[in-house]
């Protein structure tokens, strides 16, 4: 049945539908409503689960690791500073191959302190071995959490479902909530191959001397690569049950486009409006939205962007001293491809800065100009900077 839900509520309801057994989370803006709603479900008996109200995010993920290793389906949720505090444990969760699912309401990193949305936090932990899905709307948040459990438990990999803080987490949108029976059919109960059990003692997290360490890291890399096919397979299974289609990327009017926008998260919806307005004027502009940033859809992006003349990457994060993470990895995907499009990187929307249609149009114009002159003079640019504030010359 359809209901107006915020992103936080969508994530909480998805966790309930997935019949999670142990929730371990620490409140942090803008993720708090996820924790509050789950606490109500447990208090009202709507969800039979243990809710550990831990004393820090580092302990939040540590408790999830303990619970998942003991053989229960676990869930946690956090944002920016919390994600950074638990970043050491992100490596441990993926290294121990525990299928933990986490909802991350994207929020910028401090200092200076900011509670508003950008994707710097989940981007900063892209090397940790977690599958990372970025959602465009609250329906996708709910659906991605359900799909995340299938992907996680079949490949023994933790999955992070990211959605924009406030823009999605606190904005209500109509969301179709599937019935419990349908979800039980789509999502079988949780079975870990080697749980912590006194009847079959096992040692988890031993010392790995150089002679065997690299093999485990190689297996983790292969598992994250294998999660591409798994995400597609689970997306198809989801279409069969719930009639909503999800893949690694979303292509919007991109097949014959000369200029393409490449972005992630809720920025995709605003970009679609701009694409429509250009298309009305007969200009071949399209959009590709990356849903799965890890595993990075190299082949899919080569197919989707290969035919375009120029691509403008719009991303809400930057690696200071280099460029945006999406731009870096997309460039890496195209490095040995003969006919690669020209690429421009636009850093925008940091710290909750609004990315208006004017900014997106500026990105399209820059890409069109680059396509005409056939080269890119300045690859990395910033959109929406207010010079007056700090007397900057861009």
């Amino acid at each position, binding site marked *: 049945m359809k209901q107006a839900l915020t992103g936080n509520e969508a994530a909480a309801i998805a966790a309930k539908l997935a019949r999670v057994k142990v929730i371990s989370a620490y409140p942090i803006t803008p993720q708090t409503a996820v924790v509050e709603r789950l606490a109500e479900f447990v208090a009202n008996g709507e969800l039979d689960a243990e809710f550990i109200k831990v004393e820090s995010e*580092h302990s939040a993920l540590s408790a999830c690791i303990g619970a998942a290793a003991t053989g229960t389906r676990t869930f946690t949720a956090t944002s920016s*500073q919390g994600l*950074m*505090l638990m970043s*050491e444990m992100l*490596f441990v969760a*993926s*290294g121990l191959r525990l299928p933990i699912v986490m909802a991350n309401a994207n929020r*910028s990193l*401090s*200092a*200076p*302190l*900011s509670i*508003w949305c950008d994707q*710097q936090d989940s981007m900063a*932990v*892209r090397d*940790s*071995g977690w599958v990372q899905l970025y959602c465009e709307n609250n329906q996708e948040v709910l659906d991605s959490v359900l799909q995340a459990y299938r992907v996680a438990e079949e490949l023994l990999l933790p999955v992070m479902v990211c959605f924009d803080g406030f823009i999605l987490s606190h904005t209500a949108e109509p969301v179709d909530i599937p019935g419990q029976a349908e979800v039980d059919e789509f999502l079988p109960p949780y079975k870990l191959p080697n749980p912590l059990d006194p009847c079959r003692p096992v040692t988890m*997290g*031993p*010392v*790995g*001397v*150089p002679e065997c*360490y*690299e093999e485990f*890291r*190689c297996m983790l*890399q292969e598992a994250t*690569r294998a999660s591409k096919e798994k995400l597609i397979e689970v997306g198809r299974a989801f279409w069969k049950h719930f009639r909503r289609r999800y893949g690694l990327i979303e292509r919007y009017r991109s097949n014959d486009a000369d200029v393409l926008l490449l972005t992630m998260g809720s920025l995709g919806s605003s970009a679609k409006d701009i694409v429509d307005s250009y298309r009305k004027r007969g200009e071949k502009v399209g959009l590709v939205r990356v849903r799965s940033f*890890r*595993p*990075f859809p190299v082949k899919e992006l080569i197919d989707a962007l290969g035919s375009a003349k120029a691509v403008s990457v719009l991303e809400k994060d*930057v690696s*200071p*001293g*280099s*460029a945006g*993470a999406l731009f*870096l*990895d997309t*460039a*890496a995907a*195209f*490095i*040995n491809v003969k006919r*690669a499009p020209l690429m421009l990187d636009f850093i925008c929307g*940091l*710290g*909750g*800065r609004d990315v208006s249609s004017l900014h997106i149009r500026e990105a399209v114009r820059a890409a069109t100009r680059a396509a005409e002159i056939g*080269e*890119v003079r300045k*690859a990395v640019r*910033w959109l929406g*900077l207010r010079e007056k*504030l*700090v007397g900057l010359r861009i």
Partner: protein
Amino acid sequence: MVARVMSGNEVVAYGVKLSRAEIVPSYPITPQTTIVEQIAEFIANGEMRAELMRVESEYAAMGACIGASLMGARTFTATSSQGLAFMHELTHWAAGSRLPIVMAVVNRAMAPPWNIWADQQDVLSQRDTGWLSLFCETNQEVLDTCIQAFRISEDREVLLPVMFSLDGFMLSHTSEPVELPKQGDVDGFLPESRRPPLLDVDHPTTLFNVPVPEQYMEFRHWIEKSMDAARRVIPKADREFKRRFGRGYRGMLEPYWLEGAEVALLTAGSVCGTVRDVVESLRKRGEKVGMIKLRSFRPFPSEELRRACEGLRVLGVADRACSFGMGGIIFSDVSAALQPLNVRVLGFIAGLGGRDITHRDIWRMFKRCIRAIEVTPARAIEWFV
């Protein structure tokens, strides 16, 4: 100049002593421990006037560094893998607050499985923090980079914390001959250590208040501008160091034997020494190969790299880390920088968790690059187990 045979960790301790660091908050973690033990020795024997804070965790170590640095004291800390990941939230904070702090990262693999040996996963995963990130090939370079790091970090145009990396055990616990500069010369090279405190009862100020969305982005852009400034300051500091002490490291990136080279291998850290040997032996056999030693990972020297790769057909990037679900970490930055040139780039991931990268491994990497001149490789990123 006093020449002595010293391990990488001892060298860092001497570098910190010569740089007159004042506050050293730190928490022990293998293989970094002998740095702090040596500093404790100096202080206990009155050779060094500094406050060694034995904090209860790496998270507290970076917190203490932030407090000390904003009070104007020259601050140093050192850590490895798990410790660096544990203080990750505060490394972002330190860079965002524009505080000059110098940190030695003795590279060690990330767990699990639990491993204390060297690879670069820990420091390369810190690429978005806003810290400058330098790599060292030899113990001499560790000492010189440590001293240069204080000058770069406290430069008015940069004002960003700097982390410099040395390979765990391969450098940290391996002794090499090192020349120790005299205290007077180092004092001449480094600015006065004491800066005005930002918190002062006479001029009460609030630090790090909350910028609303209309103000936040400009602070991040300021960091980007300081990174651009650092692209000038790092080579300048290196040249100035060479003028005073006779040793220089070609700034952010050192091309090695690229004259007439068709293929080159880019890497960072102590493995560069091995690559130099292999380049030499291959050159004797008439192979047109060379090496590019990456000294500064952040800021990433894109222009210098493009200039160095002008004549190249194929560039191999040997990453001692992996961004799981994608591939090499340095590989992505190199690919973005070399976009305009049509240089083919191959990524290799090798030497994780202390596994040696042998001459044979590097020889095989060069072979793959040479073969890639004609044949486009199926997979751009290959795992060298």
